[in-house]
C-alpha cells in the first residue's frame, strides 16, 4: 500500500519531470534559489526612474529643512552653497557653459531629470555612509539643491508628485541613441599624408603631470 507521503513524492517527481521536459524557456526549470517574497523585494527595491519618478517612495521635504540637512551632511565636500570643495563636484553653476571650452556640468546645467537627483542621493550619499538618510531627508536635500540652482522656488516641497514635474534646463538636449560610428576613415597604406605636413601639435614631454611608473606608488600632489 502507498502511504499518502509516498504518493506526494510521486506527484512531486512527475511535476519535476514535466518541468524538465518543458525546457529552459519555462521559468524555474533548474529550481535553484528561493522565490523572492513581496517583503524581500520591497526591502531591496530602491531604484527610481528619472523620466517619470517611478519608484519614488512616500514622504516629502522642504527647501528650509534641506538647508539644515545639507549643512550637516553635504557642505564639507560640496561647499556651503554647492560650489564644491577641493576636487569634489560642484552642485550649482555652469548654466550656459556646455558649448564652452571648459564646460561645467552640474545639476543646474546638465542633469536632465530631477528624480535622478533623489535616486542618487538616496543610493550613494553621503559618501562615507551611503543609504542612511530617511526618505524625508532625501526629499529635503533634493528640494534644497534644486533651489540652489534656481530650478524651484523657496517654498517648493519635494515629493513623489512634484519632483517629476520639475523642468530641468538640459532636459531636451540628450540623444538617447548612439550615432556611432562617427568616423569613416579609409585605411590608406602609402603616401597617405604629405611627409612635410607631419608635425607635432602637442607633446607630453616636460609637462610634469605624470606620476612615476617605477619604484613605490607616487603620491604627487594636486596640480
Amino acid at each position, binding site marked *: 500500500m502507498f502511504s499518502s507521503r509516498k504518493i506526494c513524492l510521486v506527484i512531486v517527481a512527475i511535476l519535476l519531470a514535466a518541468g524538465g521536459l518543458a525546457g529552459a524557456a519555462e521559468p524555474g526549470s533548474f529550481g535553484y534559489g528561493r522565490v523572492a517574497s513581496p517583503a524581500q*523585494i520591497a526591502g531591496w527595491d530602491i531604484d527610481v526612474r528619472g523620466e517619470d519618478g517611478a519608484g519614488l517612495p512616500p514622504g516629502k521635504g522642504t527647501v528650509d529643512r534641506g538647508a539644515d540637512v545639507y549643512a550637516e551632511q553635504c557642505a564639507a565636500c560640496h561647499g556651503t552653497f554647492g560650489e564644491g570643495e577641493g576636487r569634489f563636484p560642484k552642485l550649482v553653476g555652469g548654466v550656459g557653459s556646455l558649448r564652452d571650452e571648459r564646460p561645467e556640468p552640474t545639476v543646474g546645467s546638465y542633469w536632465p531629470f530631477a528624480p535622478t537627483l533623489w535616486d542618487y542621493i538616496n543610493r550613494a550619499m553621503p559618501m562615507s555612509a551611503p543609504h542612511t538618510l530617511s526618505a524625508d531627508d532625501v526629499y529635503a536635500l533634493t528640494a534644497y539643491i534644486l533651489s540652489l540652482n534656481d530650478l524651484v522656488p523657496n517654498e517648493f516641497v519635494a515629493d513623489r508628485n512634484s519632483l517629476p514635474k520639475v523642468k530641468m534646463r538640459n532636459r531636451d538636449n540628450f540623444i538617447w*541613441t548612439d550615432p556611432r560610428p562617427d568616423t569613416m576613415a579609409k*585605411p590608406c597604406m602609402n603616401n597617405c599624408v604629405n611627409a612635410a605636413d607631419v608635425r607635432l601639435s602637442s607633446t607630453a614631454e616636460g609637462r610634469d603631470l605624470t606620476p612615476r611608473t617605477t619604484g613605490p606608488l607616487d603620491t604627487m600632489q594636486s596640480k
Partner: protein
Amino acid sequence: MRPDPLRSKAVLSDLAGADAPLGRRRVLGLGAALAGSLAFGSKPATAGPAQASPPADAPWSQSIGAGVVDRPYGRPADTEASVIRRNVPWLTASAESSVSFSPLQDLHGIITPNGLFFERHHAGRPDIDPAQHKLMIHGLVERPLLLTMKDILRFPQITRIHFIECPANGGMNWRAAQMNSLQFSHGMVSCAEWTGVRLSTLLEEVGVKKEAKWAMVEGADGAHMNRSLPLDKCLDDCLVVYAQNGEALRPEQGYPLRLVVPGWEGNVNIKWLRRIKLGDKPWHSREETSKYTDLMPDGTSRGFTWLIDAKSVITFPCPEKPLDGPGLYEIRGLAWTGSGKIRRVDVSMDGGVNWQTARLHEPVLSKALTKFTLPWRWDGRPALVASRVIDETGYVQPTIAELRKQRGSNSIYHNNSIQTWQVKSDGSVFNVQLA
C-alpha cells in the same frame, strides 16, 4: 632551508647594477653565501657574478632554493616590484572614487594578471562575505528569485575571454598629449578569462515577461552603482561571473559576483552585483545622465554610448620602455574592439605617411585583447611610431584630429584615437599628438 636575507639583498644589488660592486653589503652577502654552502657540506663558491665569464655560476646556481609553499599563494619576483597598478593622485577627489591603471608596458600577453587588472570604484572596494551575498532578480518576470552564491554556482558554467575598458581610458589625451606613460594613457583596459553563468540562463529561469525591454543592474557597494541595459544585450552575451583567470574574483573586481557585458564600456560591467530588475524603460540613473554621457561641441549630449570602438596601442616601444640604440626590434602592441574580432593592424614609423601590416598573434578572440607584432630595424633617426586597427565590421581606428572634428574635445569618454609615440635619436620615447 630558508634563503638568507642578506644574500638575497646582494643578488638584488648586483641585478640593479650597484655602483660599488664590492661595497659592504655585497661582502656581507658573499660571506653569507659561503656560510650557507659550507653548512650544506658542498664546495664553497669561488666565483661571484662580478668575475663571471663563461662557464660561470651565479650564487643562485650554487645554493639551494626555497621549498614549495615557501610562498603558499605565490608572488612576482622581488625584482618585479615596480610592476603594479598605479593611480594619478591629482586626478580624483578621493581614492575611494578613483581609478588605477594596469602596467601594460610590463605585460606580455592578452591576459591581465588578476592583481594587475585596472580598478574603478565609485565608493571604495567593499569586502563582501559570500555567505551573505545574494542576487535578486525581479521586476517584469514570472518568478522573482533570490539566489545565494551556492545557487549561482550550480547553474551551467561558461568561460569566455573578454577585455574591459573604462570609457575614460585616454580621456586625459582629448585636448592634448598629457601623460608621458603607456600605463597612464592606456592602462584602463584589461582582459581576463571569466567564468560564471550566462545572464540569459538566469533570465530564462525567472521567466521574462513580454513587456520587459530593459534591465537595471545594481551593485552592493556603497554607491549602489547602477546602470540600465537593453534586454537584447542581456540575452545576447552578458555573463554573471564569479571567477577570473581561474580563481575567484578579486574583491577589487567585484567579489563574489559581477556582471561582464562584452565589448561595452567598463562601468556597465557592474561589480558586487546584487540586483537585476527588468522594466519597460531605461532608468536614466546619475551614472547614465550626468556621467558616462558624451558632451558634444553643439551642447547636446550622447547618452547610452555603450560600445567600445576599435582601438590599438603600441606597448613596445613606449615612454616607459625606450630603445637601447639602433638595431633590430620587434614592435609590439595590443588591439581590441567591442564590435567583435580584430581583422588587421597596421603600423607606421613615420607619423602615418606609410603603413605596414603587423602580424596578429593567435588567439584572435571576439571582444578580447589581440596581440600584434612587427619587426623593425631602427636606424637611430627620430621616428613617429603609431598603430591603426581595423575590426571585422570594417571600422578603422581614427586619428585624434578626425575624432575631434566629430566630437570636439569635451566628451571625456571614448577616445579611441591612434596613439603616436615619438622616438628620439637617443632612443627615448614621448607621447605626442600630430596636427
